[in-house]
């Protein structure tokens, strides 16, 4: 453990701030208007057949290469991969007029794209494996971000809790209050994420995690100011901070804890809990941009990804569960040490999702976040 050199893997490093994306977004010139695609065309059901190579656009290193290879072999098409390193970076690339066939927005961004008419409709009845998703996870029948999942298919799910070192702190109480633990003071981290930090404070105070009311935000800011002296930093590199001993406790994403389990020399040293006040929940999804050139291949790909054997490979590779019936046991076995990582259908509560604030709400939240972060 002690001489552990963590791998630069999955999305955490890049998510740590979407650093390189500055260049991308600038190159993408976000304010250029993409050519609008007639609504009638994108609402028409897609013919699910090979209509060209698959232009795939996702976080780097998200899908097991053997799963890609299987798709290329089975359908005789090439997969052209490109990656984004932040959600805004993804949107900027789309805005710049780049054409992708399948993208993986978070719920919040899926809503923005769908509302802006930038996604193809996806007819679930055409997907052979859709029943595995929608039959068992009824939440996705009509999620808040995309009514009736008309433009999306859910991909991965995750929740936010607290990861900690059992050997140093012992058992925790199961509340967000644990972050104030004096024992880990000076080695406690929060995620470098506006929604997660504000959301945690809101849940602890019994408020709506998406609140934009100034009074709420003021209460949350002052609560977080009491936590600041205990903090060592804001960092989204949660699992590396745990693995290399820099953190004894950190706000953490459930899927990243799987990386802790797989990379730690002694996995029993680590714990993961979700708070009784509520743990934010989130999901990413598959979507087909309205300007996609090969939507038929994209449909085939989504369907292929939902086959239980491919979903299992993806889950094992990525560490995040997928809402696909038949994969639950695999995931439960992977996180046997940290059972709270498991996401039950009942965990998917719309009230615990981070949403798009309306109007000036975004600015008010951002100001609160700046005040918390800059102190």
């Amino acid at each position, binding site marked *: 453990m002690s001489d552990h050199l963590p791998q630069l893997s999955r999305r955490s490093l890049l998510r740590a701030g979407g650093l390189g994306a500055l260049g991308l977004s600038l190159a993408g010139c976000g*304010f250029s208007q993409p050519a609008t695609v007639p609504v009638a065309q994108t609402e028409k059901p897609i013919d699910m057949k090979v209509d060209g190579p698959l232009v795939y656009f996702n976080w780097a290193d998200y899908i097991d290469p053997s799963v890609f290879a299987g798709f290329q072999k089975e359908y005789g098409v090439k997969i052209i991969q490109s990656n984004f390193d932040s959600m805004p970076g993804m949107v900027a690339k789309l805005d710049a007029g780049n054409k992708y066939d399948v993208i993986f927005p978070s719920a919040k961004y899926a809503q923005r794209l769908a509302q802006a008419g930038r996604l193809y409709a996806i007819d679930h009845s055409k997907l052979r494996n859709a029943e595995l998703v929608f039959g068992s996870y009824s939440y996705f029948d009509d999620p808040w971000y995309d009514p009736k999942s008309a433009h999306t298919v859910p991909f991965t799910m995750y929740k936010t809790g607290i990861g900690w070192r059992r050997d140093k702190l012992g058992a925790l109480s199961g509340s967000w209050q644990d972050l104030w633990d004096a024992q880990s003071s000076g080695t406690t981290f929060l995620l*470098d994420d506006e929604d997660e930090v504000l959301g945690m404070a809101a849940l602890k105070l019994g408020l709506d995690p998406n609140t934009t009311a100034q009074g709420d935000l003021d209460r949350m800011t002052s609560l977080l100011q009491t936590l600041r002296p205990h903090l060592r930093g804001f960092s989204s590199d949660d699992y590396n901070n745990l693995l290399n001993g*820099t953190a004894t406790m950190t706000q953490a994403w459930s899927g990243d804890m799987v990386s802790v389990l797989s990379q730690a020399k002694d996995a029993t040293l680590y714990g993961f809990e979700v708070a009784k006040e509520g743990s934010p929940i989130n999901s990413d999804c598959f979507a087909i941009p309205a300007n996609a050139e090969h939507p038929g291949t994209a449909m085939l790909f989504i369907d292929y990804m939902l086959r239980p054997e491919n979903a299992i490979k993806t889950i094992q590779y990525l560490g995040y569960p997928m809402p696909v019936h038949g994969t639950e046991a695999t995931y439960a076995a992977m996180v046997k040490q940290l059972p709270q990582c498991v996401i039950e259908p009942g965990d998917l509560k719309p009230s615990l999702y981070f949403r798009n604030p309306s109007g000036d709400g975004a600015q008010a939240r951002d100001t609160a976040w700046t005040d918390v972060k800059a102190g």
Partner: protein
Amino acid sequence: MALRTPVRTERPAPAKNVGGRGRRPRPSAAGARIWTWLTLPGTVWMSVFFIASLLLVAAISFGTTDQLGDPRFGTDLGNLKALADPAYRDVMVRSLGYALLTSVICLLIAYPVAYAVALHAGRFKNALIAAIVVPFFANYLVRMYGWSVLLSDDGPVLQLLRAVGLADDHTKILNTGFGVIAGLVYGFVVFMIIPLYAAMERMDTALIEAGRDLYGGPLRTFLFVTVPATRQGAAAGMVLVFLPAMGDFVSAQFMGGPNQIMIGNLIQDKFFEGQDWPLGSALTMALMAVLLLAMFGYLRRTRKDEAEATR
């Protein structure tokens, strides 16, 4: 300087020419045109990629964002008003302090290095300069990430220090002000070494000998001959280090804690997390204003130096 020397010998000491900007021999018309044309690529480049993008940033700072989070042009003063938040002022002051400290430390580190390489390295000179520069070919972000791993609490550096008794269990390097400044110095010291090296390389070593001939001790010769001769290189190095250090966000992100956040981190946040390009642009303009002030000080300084040099 090479141009001016003949000018001065041609005519009697010009009493009014304190600024050193004497008449130069008039070039032929064709010659002048060539020089004008040669400035064209640079002018076009700067206009397109610097001035135009700067104007865009200035324009967006009055803008708003649409539903997708994309910026829209506008005439909104809200972003400038938002800058009144004391958090920005505090972080700006902290960044200034870090950048200044970084420049000074870089100077202290780079001066002996440049001196040794330029004046005493003989035939190894180029190899040594290459050895200094080559590590900087690797991406800064990746190098900083590497440092954050090496310097982590259970990382190799602290383990070694603990083994030899130089650190205890509570010693930390990561997430401290020391860590951030060390990261900045590490990241930008090469920008100080190169101009200093160039200045020393250019310096006529006969001047040092002359100083010694005039009974100056090593220290006096250094202070009154070498230092003034390399002052411009040092000033250029200070600017080259100060400017990127002031706007840096990588070091504070990987090596800093909640109390080391720099203005670059906040700007970066606005462009990503907050997806508020207009506010990010307004902050950028504020940062540029501060940097312009610093540059202005530098330009005045160098003009004074130039005036002294040509007096």
